């Protein structure tokens, strides 16, 4: 079981949701596919790839809904032999977040969907408003960047 959280306010609802739904793991990400938090048995999974593809599925389904004059298609569910995935958007004061839930046969899409509603409400309540932030990096970052990229390319 691993937990990685970028935005701390997501952690308590996330842990509760995973426990309630008996899912294998949950990824909270931005619509651009950047992982804000993940919790569960995800060590064997290519998390970055999962997030990029999950966000892409949500984005394309949203665009498709738009083309068809629907506000949204709501949650998406894919069933596999061993795993199912539940993908849905949760609206928060921090902007929309995409939630990917991977679950096994020990639970059901019904339970995941039911507890997701609670999770989405908890996330919405916990999210602080977006705030401006100051400079992140030192101004002289470029020398380090040059060295990093040079080592990346074996130069």
């Amino acid at each position, binding site marked *: 079981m691993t937990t990685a959280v970028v935005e701390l306010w997501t952690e308590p609802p996330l842990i509760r949701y995973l*426990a309630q739904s008996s899912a294998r793991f949950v990824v909270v990400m931005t619509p651009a596919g950047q992982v804000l938090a993940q919790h569960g048995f995800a060590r064997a999974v290519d998390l970055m790839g999962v997030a990029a593809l999950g966000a892409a599925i949500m984005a394309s389904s949203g665009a498709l809904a738009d083309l068809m004059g629907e506000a949204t298609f709501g949650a998406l569910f894919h069933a596999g032999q061993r795993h199912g995935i539940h993908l849905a958007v949760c609206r928060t004061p921090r902007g929309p977040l995409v939630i990917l839930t991977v679950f096994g046969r020990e639970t059901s899409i019904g339970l995941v969907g039911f507890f997701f509603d609670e999770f989405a409400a908890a996330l919405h309540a916990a999210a602080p408003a977006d705030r401006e932030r100051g400079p992140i990096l030192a101004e002289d970052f470029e020398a380090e960047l040059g060295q990093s990229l040079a080592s990346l390319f074996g130069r």
Partner: protein
Amino acid sequence: MPEDIRALSTVLAADPASLVYVDLAEVLRRRGDLEQALRVVNGGLTRHPEHADGLDCLGRIHASRDDLPRAREAWGRALAVAPDHPGALKGMGFALFREGDAHGALAVLERALEVAPADDGARRALDTVRRALGVESAVPALAPARPQPAVVPATAPCAPSVAAVGAAADAAAELPPVFRGLEGATADILLFDDRGLVVAGGLNGADGADVSALAAAGLAGVSSEAERTAQYLALGAWTTIVAEADRANLVLAPVGPGALLLVRRERGMPVGLALRVAERAHAAASAWLARQGE
């Protein structure tokens, strides 16, 4: 001599360095021929002292012999050689749990499941440990460790669970006569706790064998499921579950905090009558539990 033992022995005789010694020892262990199994596995480990499968098998044999310290040592050696060996991880989790270190067991079993996510045995074992700790997920375990379990849960991981069930069944036979005077007091009425451990009474299978531990482990999960259902559907506290099944009717009821009662009656008995029996059993169990707390 059964065919599989004969075949494996022949292979091993032809090539004493063969790794088939593990399979042979495992077959012997499952047949209950523990001393012979120990000889075979020790013979193999003399030649292959760092063979993780062999060490894992040695752990299982010691566990079956109820020699937990040696079992733990064997699994520890296996993990020193192969830190992600699923069998050894499960074994170590089992050993730690039985020794009362539920937190240690939790960590090891979570690792086992990460290594082998499809391993139902590991998952069940993990569930048992989590229930014992009062946590539903592998959230950093905040609940205080409970006292060392008196009886091994039937869902203990991997092969040692067979021995565990046996041990639990032996223990059940010596349990206090809480339901004396009720029909089926030791074969159809079972009191167990929410960790799946038998407290009193007993349950026999169709062949007369004691299945108390197995039933307790399986039914313990029903309690939390019922609690969750009642909570989310705003039904208040749940009082009884009645299951009418092909061969028997089951009545399940919570008895005070953390204990559950199961009454089984044959399919032909009217459910109303089975409920009456359950009420009497419930009263007996409540009174007995209250006396234990005095």
